[in-house]
């Protein structure tokens, strides 16, 4: 059993969102969420302790696996940074793209009556643009 390596077929991806950024990460359900924390910290150029990953307002635990915390393929995960100079974290908020089929409704507002909740941003014009 040991020494077996998972293949791309076992992989999933997650979409980690904050404001107008989305980090797609390739991952595996048995991996600890700490792997996501590590990679997001790298991409965002932040200390690990200065970021938090949220699913439906629950803080994801680094030691537990993705599967254990019910993170499925394509799942949207909220990302928040620690507010500079304080011990608290910002309110979760991300630009919701039309057609987001998030299995769990993490929504744009992280907390009830949160300020700065980003309403879905419609693209300019009715028809989406593509290469001419």
């Amino acid at each position, binding site marked *: 059993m040991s020494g077996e*390596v998972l293949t*791309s077929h076992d992989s999933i991806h997650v979409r980690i969102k904050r404001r107008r950024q989305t980090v797609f990460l390739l991952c595996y359900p048995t991996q600890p969420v700490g792997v996501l924390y590590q990679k997001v910290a790298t991409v965002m150029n932040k200390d690990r302790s200065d970021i938090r990953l949220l699913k439906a307002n629950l803080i994801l635990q680094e030691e537990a696996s993705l599967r254990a915390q019910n993170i499925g393929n394509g799942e949207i995960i909220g990302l928040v940074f620690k507010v500079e100079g304080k011990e608290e974290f910002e309110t979760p908020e991300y630009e919701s793209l039309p*057609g987001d089929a998030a299995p769990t409704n993490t929504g744009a507002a992280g907390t009830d009556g949160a300020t700065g909740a980003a309403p879905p941003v419609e693209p300019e014009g009715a028809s989406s643009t593509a*290469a001419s």
Partner: protein
Amino acid sequence: KPLSLGEATSNRRLAAKLRPSSTSSVQQRSEFDFAVSRVRNMASSSSASPPEEEFDYLKLISAEGHEFFLDKKIAFGCEMIRTMFDGEKSHSFTEGQTGAINFQTINSRLLEKVIQYLYYKHKHTDSREAIPDFEIDDEIVLDLLLVANYLHQ
């Protein structure tokens, strides 16, 4: 006025009686055992480990300025992107240095769909099992087709 110990205890016993599981506790128990054994099985099969891979990423920027980060090797599933970073012509693209591509003609919704497709492609390429359909909303089908055509060049 706080309940007496007797009252509190009898309240608790009453609450326990009223809980639905109390009438089918045997069934609940066996379901629980089954769940536990499933978790144990998953844990033992999870001794298979993900491949050791370096983490490398690219940034793709939509027409509206939404920034998408994705694993580089997944991005290379798109021939155009691969050419910019990996091919013999890569030195002639500034993106090769910046690690970012500005897609000024592709909106956020479409670009996100493209990236989702690249992960889908990575997951299901060379799969021995039936491959699920890649879901696309009707309203973006035609535009996505144009984008796909553009990126394939």
